[in-house]
């Protein structure tokens, strides 16, 4: 009975958070628009670069044609949007401004309002981005070997990818408790993401040893894996292995969060306290 009441309370919290997030996004619609430009431009640039490479080397590079790259990067654009978080900047701001004190006073763990804030904003941005991706699809004419089982497994893979990315980045954001120079940490993180999640190029284009590194670290499981899965580029075994890896990283990051959050709150003292 108690568990049920808790879940209902959380649902209520999530729906309230949605209303606040929605209101603030309508208020800052221009910032939203500008922020989306960079979300679109980066995969678009790599799409164009790799299509050019593919066309000039006989129509195919590492198993990707120009249209294959178009499919890869348009799906990547959407998956990236779905799993994206901005929590690392948010936390730096919260700790610096002493805003975290309010969050700590609330009777629920602050991660809940962050998750619901993140999801609510995507209810608005995802349809816009899908529309943009559809427009770009008309220009670049993507093709992929879609199959039904991959499409089915894609859904849990996408949700797990979101969880892995959200939990890892939330943990990393807690670095703000110890240092004010989180920008340097974030930059290292984004570079690793760029190479090992499959943003700069599909991972199969990298040397073999780097692919093994990518398999061990969490980045591939946040982005590249669901994309390759949906495009029908993975075997049954690879798909299963991917889901296991994602699940493992969810567990690891949950443990990390518990440990680091407790230590972090202990060292936190609000500005002005």
């Amino acid at each position, binding site marked *: 009975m108690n568990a049920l009441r808790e879940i209902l309370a959380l649902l209520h919290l999530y729906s309230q958070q949605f209303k606040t997030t929605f209101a603030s996004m309508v208020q800052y619609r*221009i*910032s939203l628009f*500008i*922020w989306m*430009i*960079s979300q679109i*431009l*980066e995969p*678009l*640039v790599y799409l*164009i*670069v*790799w299509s*050019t*490479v593919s066309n*000039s*080397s006989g129509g195919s*590079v*590492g198993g990707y044609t120009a249209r294959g790259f178009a499919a890869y990067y348009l799906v990547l654009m959407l998956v990236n949007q779905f799993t994206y978080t901005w929590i690392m900047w948010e936390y730096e701001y919260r700790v610096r401004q002493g805003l975290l004190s309010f969050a700590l006073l609330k009777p629920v763990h602050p991660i809940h309002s962050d998750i619901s804030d993140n999801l609510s904003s995507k209810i608005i941005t995802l349809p816009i981005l899908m529309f943009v991706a559809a427009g770009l699809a008309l*220009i670049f004419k993507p093709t992929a070997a879609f199959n039904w089982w991959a499409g089915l497994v894609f859904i849990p893979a996408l949700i797990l990818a979101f969880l892995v990315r959200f939990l890892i980045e939330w943990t990393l954001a807690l670095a703000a408790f110890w240092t004010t*120079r989180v*920008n*340097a940490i974030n*930059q*290292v993180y984004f*570079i690793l993401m*760029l*190479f090992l999640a499959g943003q*700069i*190029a599909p991972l199969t*284009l*990298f040397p073999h040893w780097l692919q093994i590194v990518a398999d061990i670290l969490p980045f591939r499981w946040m982005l590249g894996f669901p994309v390759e899965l949906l495009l029908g580029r993975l075997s049954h075994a690879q798909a299963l292995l991917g889901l296991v890896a994602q699940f493992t990283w969810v567990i690891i990051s949950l443990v990390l969060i518990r440990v680091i959050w407790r230590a972090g709150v202990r060292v936190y003292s609000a500005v002005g306290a």
Partner: protein
Amino acid sequence: MNTLRLIYVFFRVSVLNETAYRVNFFVQLFQSILELGTALAGLAVIFSYTQTLGGWRPNEMLALLGVYFLVGGIISLVIQPGMAALIDSVRDGTLDFTLTKPEDAQLLVSIQRVAIWSLLDLLMGMGVLITALILLGKSVGLGEAVQFIGMLLAGAVIVYSFWLILASLSFWFVRVENLLEIFQSMYQAGRWPISLYPGWLRFALTFIVPVAFATTVPAEALTGRLGGPTLLEAIGLAILLFAIARVIWRLGLRRYSGASA
């Protein structure tokens, strides 16, 4: 002469201010090296699959990367900080203090803040550019060098005027910081030759947000692929945009009513 003296004085003050925060130097150094390393590694991945990218050979792409860092360094060294400060001071009304000074206010506003650690990006860009020049060897003659410097100047003037126009909009609208962000996020597209992009995107990157003139055109001049028309276009656009920026700045100042007036 007076202009140069003013620039020197403002630069010196910024240096004195920033040397109080020396750790920032190492943070910036770390970030700049990472950024350069990422860009080089990206090029390495791409050129492991192809000999030329849209007709550009690796050394020529290196030159383009050098220009990208060089111009990016100039933007974050003086243009971006000055324009951000301008927008703030229009909102707070602190622009009053600048206007009462007996010098041209546009000049004062443009050089008011210098983020000196961004010199690192600028120097690194030069380093990459020189490396590219050595690798390119004899193919760069005096003609190319003169054209390159001319195009780099034109590009800098175009970018500066573009930013000033956007920042001057703050005389009419309250929130324009966001508009400046558009340039920053579109600038990353300038790391690649503009000729790679499909027509509509090339148009946007040339005439709506003039990224092409800042990076691709100078690099084209250096690698001897610049045609006469583009050269004249760049110079013409630089003069035109500078004049428009001046007019908009003047109109904006006339509208400005100070903090409490």
